């Protein structure tokens, strides 16, 4: 009978500012288990794991390892106890080789001062062989794919003596194909001698991989179930506390809508001679949402930046409502009604040290009601305008003078969306609109996009979340290494199949009858 390896009891943690992240949370993990922890954003999963990993200290509660009470005061102590963590955002130094990243901080020494590379390489190779993993030790980490980087993180944890591995949202950045590979690795590790804890919000994967699943909501651990004895819908209900998700009522678009945005063989250079976007051609009609699926780093960000005017398009042409807008300055693109909801809302989409009203008018530098001659700002009007938007978009803030940096993620995104949707807009370029937001905020944003679609906007949507794409898109394009390699109607394809195209395993020529 497998013994209990790890036990957490009555863990409480409150953050300054009053956020009660863990309330009497508890966990029981047996040796050799693959134990999933599920819950919404803010449910307390990451906090609990960070406490286990020593990064945070609980206000109260006990942790037992092999039935002995332990206190974990730092990551280094956690590692000594055999607990390792693979974070969602990798802790790898880009310019180091893979080997250097694996041994960082734990380098074997030669003559006391120098690093013993040979010895290190041997040790790491041993681990790779034992767990049937392979990583290119001499490649630079920045050149290696995300899936490989994750393996590096896993081997890094094992190198430091981890018996328990905590994986935080491990498949967030992987294609379905790479995720399958990860599952195989996990099962192999558990078969050998490891125990795995993983945090996820992807219920399908939880059901595929884990033996046990613990549901967390609002800081509490509700229940631990045997994975075999539960279902996706049961878990979803437990997580959200109500009946399943919000569904979309989309009207079919009529086929004789005009093409609003068209790209003709556009290419964008990254460095001299290498292109991150190659020969991309597609069309977006009025009232249509075209989704672009792809693993991060395949050119979708660069494509959107180029369409939005932030970088140069080096070849090809972009046609907007019949006329070319190739490399127009951003102010002109915005005047024509092209708007961007960017990927990083904190650094591009908003200015966190400025107030809400200052954020809302950055693109209104020629607006007559806000600026009177000879260049004087009409702050009263701007204030009124801001209050209207705050109300309309339900932004929780003290007023237009509130600094945007003090807002929550959801409210910050609302400020971005409010600004982009409050001027004249005909074409929306949207990236990862609901990343990091909870269900309430996500739904709000999705509704805004659908309303814009209803109003005849042409919308281009880039997302790493296939569920989001399938939910919102009328058509889905797949981008791989800068090229569009496939096009589907969401009803005609499964996410797994899309995943194959995302990794370049398959390609297709344009479908008959598509707008290409």
């Amino acid at each position, binding site marked *: 009978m497998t013994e209990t390896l790890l036990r957490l009891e009555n863990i409480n943690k409150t953050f300054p500012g009053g956020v009660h992240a863990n309330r009497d949370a508890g966990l029981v993990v047996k040796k050799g288990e693959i134990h999933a922890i599920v819950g919404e954003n803010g449910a307390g999963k990451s906090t609990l794991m960070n406490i286990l990993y020593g990064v945070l200290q609980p206000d109260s509660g006990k942790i037992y390892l092999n039935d002995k009470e332990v206190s974990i005061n730092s990551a280094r102590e956690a590692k000594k106890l055999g607990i390792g963590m693979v974070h969602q955002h990798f802790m790898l130094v880009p310019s180091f080789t893979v080997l*250097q990243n694996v041994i960082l901080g734990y380098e074997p020494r030669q003559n006391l001062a120098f690093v013993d590379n040979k010895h290190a390489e041997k040790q790491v190779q041993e681990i790779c062989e034992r767990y049937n993993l392979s990583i290119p030790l001499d490649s630079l980490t920045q050149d290696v794919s995300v899936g490989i980087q994750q393996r590096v993180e896993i081997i890094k944890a094992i190198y430091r003596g981890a018996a328990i591995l905590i994986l935080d949202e491990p498949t967030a950045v992987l294609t379905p194909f790479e995720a399958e590979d990860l599952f195989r690795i996990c099962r192999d590790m558990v078969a050998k001698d490891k125990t795995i804890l993983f945090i996820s919000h992807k219920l399908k994967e939880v059901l595929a991989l884990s033996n046990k699943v613990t549901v967390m909501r609002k800081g509490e651990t509700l229940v631990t179930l045997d994975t075999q004895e539960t279902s996706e819908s049961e878990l979803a209900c437990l997580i959200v506390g109500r009946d399943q998700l919000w569904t979309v009522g989309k009207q079919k678009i009529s086929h004789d809508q005009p093409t609003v945005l068209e790209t003709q063989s556009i290419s964008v250079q990254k460095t001299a001679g290498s292109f991150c976007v190659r020969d991309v051609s597609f069309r977006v009609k009025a009232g249509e949402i075209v989704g672009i699926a792809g693993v991060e780093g395949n050119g979708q960000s660069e494509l959107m930046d180029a369409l939005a005017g932030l970088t140069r398009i080096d070849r090809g042409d972009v046609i907007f409502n019949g006329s070319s807008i190739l490399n127009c300055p951003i102010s002109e693109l915005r005047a024509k009604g092209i708007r961007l909801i960017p990927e990083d809302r904190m650094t591009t989409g908003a200015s966190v040290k400025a107030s809400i009203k200052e954020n809302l008018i950055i693109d209104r530098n020629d607006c007559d009601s806000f600026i009177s001659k000879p260049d004087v700002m009409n702050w009263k009007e701007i204030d009124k305008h801001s209050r209207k938007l705050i109300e309309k978009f339900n932004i929780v803030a003290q007023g237009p003078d509130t600094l945007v940096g003090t807002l929550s993620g959801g409210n910050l995104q609302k400020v971005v969306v409010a600004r982009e949707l409050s001027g004249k807009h005909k074409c929306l370029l949207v990236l990862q609109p609901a990343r990091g937001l909870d269900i309430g905020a996500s739904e709000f944003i999705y509704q805004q996009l659908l309303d814009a679609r209803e109003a005849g906007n042409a919308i281009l949507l880039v997302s790493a979340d296939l569920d989001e794409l399938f939910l919102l898109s009328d058509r889905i394009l797949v981008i791989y290494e800068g090229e569009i390699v496939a096009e589907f109607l969401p009803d005609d394809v499964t996410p797994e199949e899309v995943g194959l195209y995302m990794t370049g395993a398959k390609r297709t020529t344009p479908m008959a009858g598509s707008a290409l």
Partner: protein
Amino acid sequence: MNIDFILDVLGTGLRMATPFILAGLGGLISLSAGDLNISLEGFMLIGAFFAILGSYLFESYVIGICFAILATMLYGLIFGLFTIKLKADVFVVGIALNLLASEATVFFSRLFFNVRGSFSDPRIVGIPNIHFDILEKVPMLNELFNDHSAFVYVSWIMIIVFWFLIYRTPYGFYFRAAGEHPEALETTGIRVNKIRWIANVICSVMCGLAGAHLSLGYLKLFVEDMTAGRGFIALSAVIFGGSNPLTMSFTSLLFGLAEGISLRIQNMGIPSQFTLMLPYLTTILALVFRAVKKNRKVSLLTSIAAVETEVKGEKL
């Protein structure tokens, strides 16, 4: 323009490069650990003054060097306190320390020596030149490499030492990790702040050596603001060289050469002002050259520094 003249200029260039190399190596470590230390100038000046003070009081250049290093380390303590502990903006603190060094050395000059402007005294013992007997056999090499002040040779040794430090020891990795991805380092259990302090100390010491060379190496005197922008020239060499000590040193040699040429052509009928401009113009040209090469694609997407400041904290 005969061979002797060229050798003379090159030899001068080698000498002049020494403060750039020494301070530059310190700045390099500082930069790789994440802080672009703008106050190399101020640190060097402090080193220069206290080297003179030590040598004057104890009639020994060794004590002078010790004084210089202690003083710059103390100065580094202030820098570290404000930038690492209090998390103040490195740029602002750097500017403040540059100005403070200038004012403070003048103040101390008045206080200890009762002079303004420059201070010199026969009691001051300078750093000796080193003579290599072997080199006497090869006339060209002899003129180029022999009889330089000790620190010139020390700086070359330091280049090699630092190369090993950065690429072959764990600390080299820790510095680079602290600068590139501090979280990655922190999660291995190594405190990023400890690494930054170590980088701070190394930079302070190197600037102290650079300053000591400046005042005790050839001159044996202290002049107000005698660093004359050398700290910034060293900074340009650091920027130009990236995190590679070899490239940085090569750039320093180039800048040293500019200074060497400027010194030697002063007697050739051109108003001295134009010759004196040479090192500064060269520095600007080097930066422009580097920028032009790097920025084939000109866009403002990479105003990372400003954005980081926004997200991390206030800039005065």
